[in-house]
């Protein structure tokens, strides 16, 4: 097999044939066969669907148990020609100890083969892009979850890699941070980069791309345009939990035709809706325009998504 990366415009960025990966008796990815073209692609599925395992296979961190996988035309594992053209933002929150955000990004930029001066310039630009320029010299230990997420994104933006794998990049970000990352991914797509972004929240994927691969239990459940998948999912109610000091006032503002029920807890509002996009739009407007009760966090219940996928599987 020729492992020289394919640089033709029409070539798929990821090509998978009968790909399986198991760890002992646990099957993480089961007989996947599909291709991903250029542009932004969403990898959607509940926790444990096999998204991260697939991404690690595509990055060459795992060896396929069976089948083949080609990224930019080459097998990725230990293939420096392929690795030179891809970048990765991991889902997990792991950093080198005793380092500032700047140092973390700088040293990882050096691993791209950059000299000191170029690595410094690339680090400053990447931190600027994720809006971390003013805090980049602070120790990572002092960062909030959202800031850690941003600095992780910065480490993969310094490379100018043409294919980016972003594993749950919006996790832990506040609504404003999410909007910025949505915009950044959108700009990357517009600029000609290919981005594979994973999430277990449909709305997040919907904000960055129309092209989605739906995974469940290690298999591909559906793939295609997001509205086709949305049509399937819309029949199933969606649960959103919002942390706010005034849940009742917030519930009045979040009323929309798809809303089915609301539940109040101390400092928390849980809303079940058939129109999550409308609900998220309202929440975003409130945050960005600052015209409602303070919103501390927004969470899409994963078990709810589990049930959506179970529902789709039954269908």
């Amino acid at each position: 097999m020729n492992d020289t990366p394919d640089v033709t415009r029409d070539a798929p960025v990821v090509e998978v044939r009968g790909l399986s990966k198991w760890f002992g008796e646990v099957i993480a990815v089961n007989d996947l066969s599909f291709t991903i073209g250029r542009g932004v692609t969403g990898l959607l599925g509940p926790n444990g669907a096999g998204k991260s395992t697939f991404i690690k296979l595509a990055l060459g961190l795992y060896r396929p148990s069976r089948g083949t996988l080609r990224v930019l035309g080459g097998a990725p594992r230990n293939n420096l020609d392929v690795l030179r053209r891809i970048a990765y933002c991991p889902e997990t929150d792991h950093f080198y100890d005793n380092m500032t955000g700047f140092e973390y990004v700088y040293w990882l930029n050096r691993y791209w083969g950059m000299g000191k001066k170029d690595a410094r310039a690339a680090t400053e630009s990447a931190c600027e892009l994720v809006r971390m320029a003013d805090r980049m010299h602070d120790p990572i230990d002092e960062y909030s979850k959202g800031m850690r997420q941003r600095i992780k994104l910065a480490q993969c933006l310094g490379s100018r890699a043409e294919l980016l794998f972003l594993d749950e990049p919006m996790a832990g970000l506040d609504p404003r941070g999410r909007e910025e990352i949505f915009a950044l991914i959108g700009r990357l797509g517009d600029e000609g980069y290919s981005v594979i972004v994973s999430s277990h929240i449909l709305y997040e994927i919907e904000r960055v791309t129309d092209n989605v691969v739906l995974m469940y239990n290690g298999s591909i459940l559906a793939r295609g345009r997001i509205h086709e998948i949305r049509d399937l999912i819309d029949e199933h109610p969606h649960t959103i939990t919002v942390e706010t000091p005034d849940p009742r006032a917030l519930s009045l503002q979040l009323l929309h035709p798809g809303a089915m029920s609301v539940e109040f807890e101390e400092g928390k509002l849980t809303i079940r809706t058939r129109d999550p996009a409308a609900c998220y739009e309202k929440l975003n407007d409130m945050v960005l325009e600052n015209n409602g009760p303070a919103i501390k966090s927004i969470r899409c219940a994963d078990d709810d998504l589990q049930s959506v996928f179970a529902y789709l599987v039954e269908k």
Partner: protein
Amino acid sequence: MTEEPIAAPHAVLLPPAPPERAGYFNYFRAAYGHATVMMVRRMRVVMAAVICLLPVLIPLATAFLSRDRFAQEGAVQFRMLVEHAHITMLAPLLALFFGSMLIGEDIEARNIPYVLTRPIPRSAWVLGRFGAYLTVTGTILLLSIGLTFASSTSLARFGVSATNLGILAQYSAVAVLALLGNGAVAVFLGALTKRPIIFGVLVLYGWQQLAMKVPGVIDFFTIQKYTDAMLPALASERGMQTSPAARDALLEFTREVYAVGAAKACITLLLISAVFLGLTVLVVRARQFASARAIGA
């Protein structure tokens, strides 16, 4: 399918592109610099330095407590300290402290995917890190040997002379080679096993000490065999004189039959180090470090 090359993505958004193909040395320097920064910021360095500097106090204490009684033992004490403390005990200890965690720590802290998803040659990464290990541990150990030499001059009949400086240089070289050999074994264990410290203690202290005491050729499979062979002859002779007669005769016999010259020992130690570093590179290429099993979870 068209064969038209893809235009480079627009340059307005992201930072300047990294070099298409950076030189091997560029990657080596990146790994070296990063590992050095990480190592010197650890509390472990302070701990290691404190432990390694303890032998410096012994000649001073000896001189302070009983100058006359130990008047002739300046040279002997320096040699004993460097052979038994620095080379036999502290070099493996530093290898355990730093060598075994050189890659093991990245696996444990789950930072290794950052490195393995970058186009750095795995050998440049391993060698760069190993270079950092040698620099940091070498500085600590050589500083300690130098200070031990200085403090030994407080004892009689031992001063700064060309002969003594020559001995100091020879011991320093052997100490660095001990760090190299023990470190290469430790870094390999760090890449291969989930508990490199435990395996390191078993190999560097348990196995080596046992094999060195058993007559025959088994000691050829230790690092200490070769570091001992490079020590100045006087010290070894002194060691022999203090041994019981039966063991003395046995050791004489094995040394006669299986003795290794300093030059051969040096080459063998370099070869052993190269083999273990090569094996480490192979392990880094072959293992799936991102898996829960690799990190022992």
